[in-house]
């Protein structure tokens, strides 16, 4: 048994030690947001936040995460009470198929936590590890800018679980 802290809650996970975090999140904890895209750390769709940093969950074995705080998109907010980054992606309609979007959002969230007013160049540089095949990039960029504005004005919103904020 490995103890994992995900979205502010402790979970006892019965999985082999080398299981990548992605499969623990999806298979053991039944979380949908982190996606399998390549299993090679090449596309970014599995991105989650670990201790404030964006991490490619498909290449990090679970055993390395004991004692760390893992945050997934589910930990930020809900449809009824979306976090600023989620509101921003809804308001910009920043998705086509949407498969890559949760990973993009988590890296953007990690960026905005340490830099609340990123430049366009900084956002582009930060999102470099992420692929989108539908070509939604323009909207993704707009959504991250919008999220920065929303977070700036909405620090009063209820805090999300875990270490994300």
């Amino acid at each position, binding site marked *: 048994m490995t103890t994992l802290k995900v979205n502010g809650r402790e979970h006892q996970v019965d*999985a*082999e030690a080398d*299981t*990548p975090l992605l*499969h623990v999140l*999806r*298979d*053991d904890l*039944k*979380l*949908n*947001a982190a*996606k*399998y*895209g*390549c*299993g*090679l750390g*090449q*596309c970014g*769709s599995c991105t989650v936040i670990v201790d404030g940093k964006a991490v490619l969950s498909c290449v990090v074995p679970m055993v390395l995460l004991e004692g760390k705080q893992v945050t*997934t*998109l*589910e930990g930020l*907010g*809900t*449809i009824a009470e*979306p976090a600023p980054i*989620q509101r921003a*992606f*809804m308001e910009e*309609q920043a*998705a*086509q*198929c*949407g*498969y*890559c*979007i*949760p990973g993009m*959002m988590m890296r953007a969230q990690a960026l905005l936590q340490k830099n609340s007013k990123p430049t366009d160049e900084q956002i*582009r*540089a930060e*999102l*470099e590890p*992420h*692929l*989108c*095949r*539908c*070509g*939604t*990039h*323009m*909207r993704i*960029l707009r959504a991250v800018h919008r999220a920065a504005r929303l977070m700036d004005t909405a620090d009063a919103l209820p805090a999300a679980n875990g270490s994300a904020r």
Partner: protein
Amino acid sequence: MNAPLILDRRRMLAGGGALIVSFSLGSALAQQQDAPAASAPSPPGSLKTSPYLDAWIRIDANGVEVFTGKAELGQGFKTAFQQIAADELDIAFESLKVTTADTRLTANEGYTAGSNSMKDSGTAIQNAAAQVRALLIAEAARRLDQPEANLRTENGAVIAPDGKRLPYGELVAGEMLHVQAQPTSKLKDPATFKVIGRPVPRVDIPAKVTGGEAYVQDMRLPGMLHARVVRPPSYGAQLTECDTAAVEKLPGVVKVVRDGNFLAVVAEKEFQSIKAMNALAAAAKWKETASLPKQDDLLNVLTSLPSQDTTIFERSNPAVTGQKTIEATYTRPYQAHGSIGPSCAVAQLIDGAMTVWTHTQGVFPDRQGIAEMLRMPPARVRLIHVEGSGCYGHNGADDAAADAAVIARALPGRPVRVHWTREQEHAWEPFGPAMVTKLKASLDGNGRIADWNFDVWSNTHSMRPGGAGSMLAAQHMAQPFAVPAPRPLPLPEGGGDRNAIPFYNFPNARVVHHFISAMPLRISAMRALGAYHNVFSIESFIDELAILAGADPVEFRLKHLDDQRGRDVIEKAAHAFGWKSDQKPPPDRGYGFAFARYKNLAAYCAVASEVEVNRETGRPRLIRAAAAVDSGQVVNPDGLINQIEGAIVQSMSWTLYESVTFDDTRITSIDWQTYPILRFNSVPESIEVHIIDRRGQPFLGSGETGQGPAAASIANAIANATGKRLRNLPLTRKRIKEAIDA
């Protein structure tokens, strides 16, 4: 039988008096279709093939449900269909539910392809909704003993003059909506639309951005097992040896499934199935054959293969003769759909009935293929569409569905989820076919195009299922199903010859389609089919001719185009971009323009672009693009803009970076490192999309209209920036650098 007769005289006249009411008392299953009476003109859109109104709209006490046989692939049409039904039915958008492709529940609309969803299904839903509304008014008139003219509809109810409301759910009884559609409908006046034409937020986005269950990849059925397939290392490889004993003892492994060259492993947990797949792959010994052509000589490979040649267009005016002639050859490599989420499916066999949840684009044809493969009657096989990652055509979706079905058959009762690996998706998806075009044209003394010759060499652009042999699992079984013989897709839509016929008006023109049946690589439909390369070729060559004529590329196009809607999008895009005939781009930058009407019969799209080229490295970068699109009546303007923005960005990635690579035996572009696509550092500064809304005009679709114009616009801008014309896709940094240095 409670269906009332609708004695609407206007409609009776329009329909030639043919009022068809079904007296079926049996099952109201939507897919049990009868053809409409031969004497009657057929109703519009997919009502032609699925004429019963209740195939599209069902109403009961619980509410109103809309059905489509098309599959939501991330284009957003589910929201658009809901908008259409809301307006034509006079019901709140939020109160509607839309159900997509399901062989048990929805009409058979074939494939979700060709930008046809709005035209086929959107039109059917619009007309069905209008006719259902008329039936509801007629029923209310009967019950209230009032003339129909005194009644109106509002917010899901028929309203009497005294204000009495008869909710739709109370008006519908029995088989009232199980009637065949009339040829014409009393559609709403577009001026009265409340939600059509508005940027209604997509219904699927909230779940997608909050971790909701949104994709087939997210399905978790009780007792579900995880399977992985071990694919052969190359086309045609034969499994000679595979000791499965050690794999079967691995933790969590439930079963190894082997049938000829089909090899898979099933485990309780997903990562256990991945580890077992790796062990199984190591244990498997294959005999491979070197059968692939030379990747760097596709021009000769394609033009040397036997072809079936058809002159698909010929026009002659001997009075006009050319004076200056140029010719050019353009090529396109094999390109990958490259879905971000590899293909996935879930299947379950219960009591001899197979259910498959799949992101296929065609639940009905895919069911036919799977039933044939399993040697089961199609009625015992149900396919349910569940969204997957964007597919942009025929990717691994159908193959994954077949894989899941074969594996689930070996484990009756247990749901089995199959998820392909990245490498499998890249190596085994059917690619967009390589193509060659040869063009030759002349200018007359006035700088007009006098003659035009266009030859295109291509495979078919659809090897979609229908037969089992289209699917990998069936091809790899011990008793394999043969790959069906490829066929050219018929014009006017066409396949390799899609958009090969010029939309411009040339006095002399000849277009020849060289259809190649041999398929050295596995290929099928990829967004826009042949139109991507044909429009790239035509619109690049038009620029070459404009330069020869010393004419501005936009004016030169207008000079050869009669179609007013085409002229309008060209002028709109040029104006939005700030295009001027005497323009001079900044150093190392270039301006490009291109236009097409998709399939010569669907949406119009023009794209102007500005590209910067680094002369030291050759690296091109799209700086900005301005597009104009006419897709007929617009249902959701933001959805349309999203489609065109995406088309420009994706087409730019195809055009600048992408080609499938292979040696003489294996596909070697098997991940994102070996098949690089656009990343954020190459995303443009801005993309503007301007819509010309044609209210009340037919829906023209939009998913594929941008691919060709975007490619040619960028190619023309690179030529404008460098003075060098690149004709072989992709227009890579290396090729541009070589052209600059040449």
